[in-house]
């Protein structure tokens, strides 16, 4: 049973556009929702994270929107750049338990 469902699997956006990646979770006990960014040939790295007591967190061009009632959270990349082309993973965790990852979204930003 997949606890965190991520969509789409791949996404192509034009430079300057908005990239949106969605995740849905089932376990209401999850209390930490990070997003990881992975460039080709590298391991994933923490991009931004949110706790369920806030509905939005913004860091530069990257924003997490969190909808607790719908059990969904999403990553928005404003003014997408070719350098943002990477694979993005959402994840969730309860307390000190291990992270549960989504299956990833490969983002391509065309120049």
């Amino acid at each position, binding site marked *: 049973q997949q606890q965190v469902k*991520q969509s789409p699997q791949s996404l192509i956006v034009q430079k300057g556009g908005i990239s949106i990646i969605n995740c849905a979770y089932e376990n209401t006990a999850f209390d930490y929702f990070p997003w990881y960014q992975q460039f080709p040939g590298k391991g994933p790295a923490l991009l931004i994270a949110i706790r369920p007591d806030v509905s939005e967190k913004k860091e530069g061009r990257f924003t997490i929107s969190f909808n607790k009632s719908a059990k969904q959270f999403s990553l928005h990349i404003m003014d997408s750049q070719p350098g943002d082309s990477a694979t993005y993973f959402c994840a969730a965790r309860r307390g*000190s338990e291990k992270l549960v990852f989504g299956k990833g979204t490969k983002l391509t930003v065309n120049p």
Partner: protein
Amino acid sequence: DVKVTQSSRYLVKRTGEKVFLECVQDMDHENMFWYRQDPGLGLRLIYFSYDVKMKEKGDIPEGYSVSREKKERFSLILESASTNQTSMYLCASTTPAGSLWSYTFGSGTRLTVV
């Protein structure tokens, strides 16, 4: 910054060989993890360890074993490599200290079994 180092970036092994993948972290992290990454399947957890000499099975442990004799080192062992173990292998470490602890990943080892 925490550094997680995987000893090899690329490996080519023959079917039936015993394969060792090594991972070392330099920040005294308690928790260490081994994942494999395949297109369309995301990150799948193979094994993890919360302390020296402790290990727990992840979601896909079959065909693998692990060793953690020292806190900084976590080894993944393929007892008898098979072609379906061709994959990217990622090691990660973390510590539960702090309110928003996160995983630090190595750069991965791309293993090809021929």
